């Protein structure tokens, strides 16, 4: 068989495997609420979308934002406020939260992309901290208490989200749409340019791309999707608090992505599921969560940089290569 034909065959096989895995994952998610506590799975889904949105920036554009909590928690505040103070229906409130996060992303991104590498991370962290202090003082966030008792309401005026299963399938829908959006962005010509910026920024510039604009666009998209996740979480848990805008939350989403696999499609979702499950377990054991989180960070950076999904993918690639050499 010719080299090209072999290559095509392998590509087709990997596509079949990928589709089978996606179908399996969706079926598991549909069955999950009948087996596991649904609120818990909804929490996982919200964080999984958050991590996928974050990975769009870190994994595919090579920008490490240390301030994504501002978008996640900010959108939660906007959404909760719209429902509670103005009586907006859930779908409109979530869209408002997403749009608000996108606007914040535009401002923060505009400032942060003026510097590169490590400075970019520090700037995003500082700006997010500024937003945190703003939330502490601003009257609309209701300070330490947060916005409590947000009604779930009726989706499009019809579906009662107060019913747990309705809420669950709505969250699942939002999650799938969000992840599909990330997948679509990454696999578009635009996504290819983002990857070229990640690999070699100077070369992308010399090829004539206005790198700054691409980075900013990626930043805004990532912020908007993180906002979608945060706003949805506010509807699920019926509150928005300061916890979601702290720098610890920004660190948590980095950990989820790192643990699952930076720059892989499924990695961040897997990482988010694991971290949420771990925190749930630790919450009852009395062992401090920060120590566990910090240790996983250190271990991942030292010996496990590809993450779980990245590690599996690399192993699979090696096997495929060995197979084609025989």
């Amino acid at each position: 068989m010719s080299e090209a034909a072999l290559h095509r065959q392998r590509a087709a096989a990997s596509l079949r495997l990928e589709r089978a895995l996606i179908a399996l994952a969706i079926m598991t998610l549909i069955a999950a609420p009948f087996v596991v506590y649904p609120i818990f799975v909804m929490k996982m889904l919200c964080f999984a979308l958050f991590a996928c949105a974050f990975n769009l920036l870190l994994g595919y554009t090579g920008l490490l934002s240390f301030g994504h909590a501002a978008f996640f928690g900010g959108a939660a505040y906007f959404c909760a406020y719209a429902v509670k103070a103005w009586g907006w229906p859930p779908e409109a409130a979530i869209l408002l939260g997403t749009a608000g996060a996108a606007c914040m992303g535009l401002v923060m991104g505009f400032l942060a992309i003026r510097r590169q590498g490590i400075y970019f991370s520090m700037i995003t962290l500082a700006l997010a901290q500024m937003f945190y202090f703003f939330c502490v003082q601003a009257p609309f966030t209701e300070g330490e208490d947060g916005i409590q008792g947000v009604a779930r309401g009726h989706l499009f005026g019809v579906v009662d989200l107060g019913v747990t299963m309705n809420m669950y399938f709505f969250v699942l829908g939002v999650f799938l749409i969000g992840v599909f959006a990330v997948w679509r962005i990454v696999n578009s010509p635009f996504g290819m340019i983002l990857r070229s910026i990640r690999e070699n920024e100077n070369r992308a510039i010399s090829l004539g791309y206005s790198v700054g604009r691409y980075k900013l666009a990626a930043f805004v998209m990532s912020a908007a999707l993180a906002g979608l996740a945060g706003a949805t979480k506010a509807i699920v848990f019926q509150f928005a608090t300061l916890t979601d805008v702290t720098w610890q939350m920004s660190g948590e989403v980095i950990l989820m992505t790192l643990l699952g696999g930076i720059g892989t499609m499924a990695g961040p979702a897997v990482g988010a599921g694991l971290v949420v499950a771990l925190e749930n377990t630790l919450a009852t054991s009395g062992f401090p969560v920060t120590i566990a989180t910090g240790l996983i960070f250190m271990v991942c950076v030292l010996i496990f940089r590809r993450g779980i999904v990245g590690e599996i993918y690399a192993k699979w690639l090696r096997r495929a290569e060995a197979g084609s050499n025989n």
Partner: protein
Amino acid sequence: MTMIFGIPIQALLGQLLVGLINGSFYAMLSLGLAVIFGLLRIINFAHGALYMLGAFIGYLLLVHLGIGYWPALVLVPLVVGTFGIAVERLALSRLYRLDPLYGLLFTFGLALVIEGVFRYYYGVSGNPYAVPALLAGGTNLGFMFLPNYRGWVVVASLIVCIGTWLLIEKTRLGSYLRAATENPELVQAFGVNVPLLLTLTYGLGAALAGLAGILAAPVYQVSPLMGSDLIIVVFAVVVVGGMGSILGAIVTGYMLGVAEGLTKVFYPEASNLVVFVIMAVVLLLRPAGLFGRDA
């Protein structure tokens, strides 16, 4: 009472002093960050945790062993510096060939662990550390009342900053350090032990953070969270100053501390935002930072 811009001069000078104290710690910490970054190309997120560690070791020495402030001023930097050397040897030295982002992530994890351990054993409430007897009380300067210890902090931090600056700019060791910052391979080829230099640099940076911690112990409450609140502001300071110059880091630290103090007088609500706002303005006007060479 004398007034300036409708503010009593005593209140103005009082806040100016508070600003100068905060600025002293910004300067010492951003100096350490700049020294470490210059050679190791790592942003030490654990710097705030090391500062907290310094304050806590001082507190524990006093409570458990009865070792007072003055011996602690020598012991604490030694202990924290040794800890830093161990961290560099065991972990950071394995990350130099990678993207600098991994260094940031590792030290972030380290900071979480250090902070988590102290939170677990000592809770989040602050523990007071008494001002040493020699510096208790205050001096009436005629126009304002100066608590002696606060005056000492400003003087001590100036000594530390100028001392570190002289060490790097004027000594042989400092010249090796500067050379290794520019071109480590070449310096290694000349027979200088660069890996040792890297280890010592991180140790020195950690010791500086520890020293800042023990100096801070009598001013602020000794609490596990004292470092993480500070480190993010220090990052903003570093962005404003640019890490290209040691002197720049020091000057920016004091300047932003004073700016923060003055904001507390004129518009208190914005006092914890002002450093970040200044950072945003500097990014708009001078993206490379006030003293920065590289963008």
